[in-house]
């Protein structure tokens, strides 16, 4: 099943774009509320100014003018909150706007946080995230690629949970490896699917929701580019855990 490196990167790029595209729906939804609020507030501010001008020019009803001002003041706090929400969306998308990248010393927890921030809106209220981060050293790796791996695993975890559930992200130093475990309380993996889930194009999701590339790419990145391993355990009906192990000192000249 090996293909030319050029194809590898094309497949990875297509998958990245597709997953960003699907994420876009959540992004639009997340931006809509603060933007709607900001638009309404600016209309209210303009109307308030008109009213205040009349009140001031007329030199009457100072109580009414104060009420209009108080009303305006109550919106300033909302404006700030709304802007913060928009800024948070932008901040959480930024790490994923870059593809490729170079090897560098990286804190794996930062990459996990980046991926978690991005899925938070789609998870919100439905899924509780538990971070069980241990003491782990920085490692030299391809941060862009690993961030995408963690996103793929977290999106899968979220998609496996129907209704409410829990996703746990656990990290530990384990001998000469870092062990990252992403568990969900979702529907689990059927025994007959077990041998196939890392195959390129295998998906149990409806078209538009899955391309079946997420795990195949994750495995290429973890094993091929980092000399690590990825495997899973699952109880059908009771969730799944994906284990990623990355060597702390990987000799990159070996690949």
């Amino acid at each position, binding site marked *: 099943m090996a293909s030319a490196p050029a194809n590898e990167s094309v497949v990875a790029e297509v998958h990245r774009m597709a997953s960003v595209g699907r994420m876009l729906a959540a992004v639009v*939804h997340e931006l809509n509320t603060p933007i709607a609020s900001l638009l309404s507030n600016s209309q209210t501010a303009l109307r308030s100014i008109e009213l205040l001008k009349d009140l001031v020019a007329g030199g009457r009803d100072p109580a009414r003018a104060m009420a209009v001002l108080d*009303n305006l003041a109550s919106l300033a706090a909302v404006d700030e909150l709304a802007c913060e929400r928009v800024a948070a969306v932008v901040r959480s998308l930024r790490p994923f706007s870059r593809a490729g990248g170079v090897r560098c010393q990286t804190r794996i927890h930062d990459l996990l946080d980046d991926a978690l921030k991005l899925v938070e809106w789609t998870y919100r209220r439905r899924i509780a995230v538990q971070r069980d981060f241990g003491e782990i050293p920085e490692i030299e790796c391809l941060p862009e690629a690993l961030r995408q791996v963690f996103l793929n695993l977290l999106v899968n975890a979220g998609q496996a949970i129907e209704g409410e559930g829990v996703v746990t992200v656990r990290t530990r130093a384990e001998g000469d490896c870092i062990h990252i475990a992403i568990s969900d309380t979702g529907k689990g993996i059927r025994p007959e699917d077990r041998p196939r889930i890392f195959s390129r194009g295998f998906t149990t999701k409806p078209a538009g929701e899955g391309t079946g590339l997420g795990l195949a790419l994750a495995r290429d990145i973890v094993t091929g580019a980092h000399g690590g391993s990825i495997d899973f355990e699952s109880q059908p009906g009771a969730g799944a855990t994906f284990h990623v192990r990355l060597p702390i000192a990987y000799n990159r000249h070996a690949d």
Partner: protein
Amino acid sequence: MQTNAQPVVMIVDDEEMVITSISAYLRLETEYQIDGFTDPQEAARRLETNPVDVVVTDFLMPKMNGVQLLARSKQLQPEAARILLTGHADKQNAILAINEVGVYQYLEKPWDNAQLLLVIQSAIERTQLFRQLREKISELDAAHGNLKDIQTRLLRAFL
């Protein structure tokens, strides 16, 4: 339920900032009483005891969606106008559900304040007309009952 002297507008959205923005605008332009709820179940309980003229609700909310809330509102206060104010992403599902409850208006976020106000104003008028009509009908019923009564007594007295 009787007609409210001061119109009551119920606003339900799990996002506090939506309630704050709409309330601030309505307070500026109207004398309406505004009841905001971030919890649709709490809003539904309020409808059991307090008459409202309009319910404006979001669609996608935890615990209870907007259409479920409007169905409850229809049951408890059939005259109160029902308005759905929803994000674009939920449109498809919202429209499917709208047919079940009968919605006065469907608006999308972001909304235009002036348009929202127009919709709420005409919804209140409609609600109050319905309530007045019902009061008149029950007055007529009472008057009719009185006439019946007199007729029976007359018949009894003379026949």
